[in-house]
């Protein structure tokens, strides 16, 4: 590999070329197709890892071609290579997860299409990440959006089509904003090449606000921060589970990647932008967390948690110091790992029981110990429990917000800490009601080896990167480059040793006190309250108490009742915080105002048509 430049294009060409090939292969043999897609994705992952040494020193430009006034180019930087390796890793996990998962669709739906779209999706994401020019990026961005749309609507049920349409319309709105931003940028600065834009000192001051806000909204729709997050909790549950893992694991990260790239790599924006993004992030953390708590749908819960975690990344990125940026990017990476893991785990739960309702689940830990172990690692990582990787990135983020020298920095810190608490609450709900307690739904199937591998690999990575975060640091260092990042010392081994010690002590205590004999399996109970002690009159005043069964989701509903946050749930139920619905309201109001003129009567239309014609002719001829 003397000139890695040309080979770098293989990252893009192979998945896109394999996409139709996989369809044809699937017509020959399903098994061959599954192996082929696994090998392709794994190969790209390996290749991207092999490319790491080349980008340590600086950016890698390959393939430049002039087409008219636009120069199509692709290039790799340390950050985009990190993204590529994440994309290919998660796509690999999804493609080894999928063959098992798709068994329930076999016969009804075209699973060849699924794999073909999966590879196309991967190609689109990689293209959007490695594009060295904004129009090229836009093309792949749209490819990504389209492939994701068809994957979300893959089940072809009315709900999934509705969710997919919502996703598609919102994404296209965002894409239009991006396109407007690109065009504006092109008009004002004369280039869309990232390399040339990076060399420029600053944007034209009078256009910078509009360009940057267009980019923030456009990429933000994909990144799904509050309040333009509303497609995410609808689309994630309806998509097939491996696709939810991809959507949440990396697709929203591609949006974040571009936000980071535009705001911190390309243009030296004023700090107020950073503050605004940080505040948006803080709001997103808290609101996403609150909304996640009350969900009764596994995947919806995890989807809201994704929004909350996106808030962390945005907060770190918005703080914008070396520490904050590092925390944001590391959290981005970590979140891709554990959220992919959690969605795949949820996919297994859905696969084996056939339901997504938390109330109907329980006691799966005995049946699937490997899956339970992996999911609990992911869950604890999400909650930020040491020695897992989530703790590491959250720690950096806390540190960054403490060091942040702005008036509202304490608010950020409080939001982050509070969000972490919320994440503990909702993830406990997930773990408890799905895996612990008594079994409520019989298992129809058992997870195959591919599924177990797909959750096992990220679990091992979570644990490994938590205990030994060196590779993480090494991959981050060239991205932040110029800014000194780490001050003071942090001994990961020590913390890990402490925590493991604590766990061992706890286990020893558990064994000594012999709680096991006194406890028996009960229906799921939550929040320190159980069936006997719960004040039923307070929470469920109208329920018949004789035949009474408490569901975990109902106990969490007590949060809904509290006055401080009640408004949020009301707003969510009535779609007040959904821009999609808001736009539809505006559209409906507009159409209602026009309805009197267009009452479906031919004659009235004719009057309009002829009057308009005459007026237009008059205007045209009197010039």
């Amino acid at each position: 590999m003397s000139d890695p430049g040309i080979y770098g294009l293989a990252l893009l060409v192979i998945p896109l070329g394999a996409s139709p090939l996989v369809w044809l292969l699937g017509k020959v043999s399903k098994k061959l197709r599954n192996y082929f897609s696994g090998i392709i994705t794994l190969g790209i992952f390996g290749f991207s890892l092999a490319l790491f040494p080349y980008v340590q020193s600086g950016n890698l430009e390959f393939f430049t071609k002039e087409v008219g006034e636009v120069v199509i180019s692709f290039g790799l930087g340390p950050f985009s290579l990190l993204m590529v390796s994440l994309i290919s890793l998660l796509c690999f996990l999804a493609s080894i997860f999928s063959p098992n998962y798709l068994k329930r669709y076999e016969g009804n739906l075209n699973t060849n299409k699924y794999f073909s779209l999966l590879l196309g999706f991967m190609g689109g994401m990689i293209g959007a990440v490695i594009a060295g020019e904004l129009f090229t990026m836009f093309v792949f961005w749209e490819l990504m959006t389209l492939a994701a749309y068809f994957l979300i609507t893959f089940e072809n049920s009315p709900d999934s089509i509705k969710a997919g349409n919502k996703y598609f319309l919102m994404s296209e709105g965002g894409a239009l904003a991006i396109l407007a931003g690109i065009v504006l940028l092109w008009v004002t600065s004369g280039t869309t090449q990232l390399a040339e834009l990076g060399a420029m000192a600053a944007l034209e001051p009078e256009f910078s606000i509009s360009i940057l806000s267009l980019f923030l909204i456009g990429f933000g729709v994909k990144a799904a921060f509050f309040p333009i997050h509303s497609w995410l909790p609808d689309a994630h549950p309806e998509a097939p589970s491996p696709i939810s893992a991809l959507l949440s694991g990396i697709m929203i990260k591609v949006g974040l990647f571009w936000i980071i790239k535009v705001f911190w790599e390309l243009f030296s924006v004023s700090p107020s932008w950073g503050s605004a993004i940080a505040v948006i992030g803080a709001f997103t953390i808290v609101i996403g967390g609150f909304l996640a708590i009350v969900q009764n749908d596994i995947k919806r819960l995890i989807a809201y948690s994704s929004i909350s975690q996106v808030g962390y990344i945005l907060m770190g990125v918005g703080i914008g110091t070396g520490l904050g940026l590092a925390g944001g990017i590391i959290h981005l990476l970590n979140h891709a790992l554990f959220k992919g893991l959690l969605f795949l785990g949820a996919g297994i739960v859905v696969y084996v029981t056939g339901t997504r309702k938390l109330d109907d689940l329980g006691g799966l830990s005995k049946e699937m110990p490997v899956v339970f172990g992996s999911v609990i690692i992911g869950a604890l990582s999400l909650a930020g429990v040491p020695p897992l990787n989530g703790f590491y990135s959250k720690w950096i983020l806390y540190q960054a917000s403490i060091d942040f020298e702005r008036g509202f920095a304490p608010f950020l810190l409080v939001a982050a800490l509070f969000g972490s608490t919320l994440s503990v609450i909702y993830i406990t709900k997930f773990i408890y009601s799905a895996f612990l307690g008594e079994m409520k739904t019989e298992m129809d199937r058992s997870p195959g080896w591919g599924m177990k591998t797909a959750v096992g690999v990220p679990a091992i990575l979570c644990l490994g990167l938590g205990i030994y975060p060196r590779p993480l640091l090494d991959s981050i260092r060239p991205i932040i480059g110029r800014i000194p990042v780490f001050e003071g010392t942090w001994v990961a081994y020590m913390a890990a040793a402490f925590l493991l010690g604590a766990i061992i002590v706890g286990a020893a205590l558990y064994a000594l006190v012999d709680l096991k004999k006194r406890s028996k399996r009960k229906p799921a109970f939550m929040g320190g309250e159980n069936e006997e002690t719960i004040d039923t009159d307070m929470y469920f005043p109208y329920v018949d108490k004789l035949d009474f069964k408490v569901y975990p989701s109902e106990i969490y509903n007590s949060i809904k009742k509290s006055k401080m946050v009640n408004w949020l749930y009301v707003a969510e139920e009535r779609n007040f915080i959904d821009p999609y619905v808001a736009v539809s309201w505006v559209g409906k109001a507009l159409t209602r105002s026009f309805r009197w003129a267009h009452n479906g009567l031919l004659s009235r239309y004719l009057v309009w048509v002829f009057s308009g014609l005459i007026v237009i002719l008059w205007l045209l001829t009197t010039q």
Partner: protein
Amino acid sequence: MVLIQIFLVFTIIAALIAVEAPSALSSIISLGAVGFGLSIAFLWLGAPDIAITQVVVEILTLVILIRATIGKGVTEIRGNESKTLLIGSLILFGLGSAFFANYLSAFPEFGKSAIDVFSETPSQFYLKFGLEKAGGANVVNDILLDFRAYDTLGEATVLFTAILGAITLLNKDVFFGEGGEK
């Protein structure tokens, strides 16, 4: 010239009767009067081809309209009208006539064709070389079939499509399958 105006006034009156008459038969016959009056006017205007076409086409139009209404048992075609639309149409009429009056002066004076006003018009070319290049004494047909045969082909296509649409609409088998409706 006065004769032409008389015929046009006649057609306007016939058209008003056709529009306002409640009985289907009288309405359609008045419509026929419009067409036939115009065809005679065409004859006076020196366009015998169009006069012939107008007459035969009018006959077929009447037959089709009568089949569609009286043939189906509809003898009254009273077109109730609404007052708001009447106002609207009056406004429209005002607008239109203002527009027309504004641009009436742009037209050549009646009785003077473009041939008289301009020197090199396509019409002059057609008149001059019609017999020589196309071979027909009837210049209108020379234009239709030789100089502008593309237009005629397109026109045949339009006619074909319109008739195809009508047949598709009327064909029972298309809508209800073999064996009649429902």
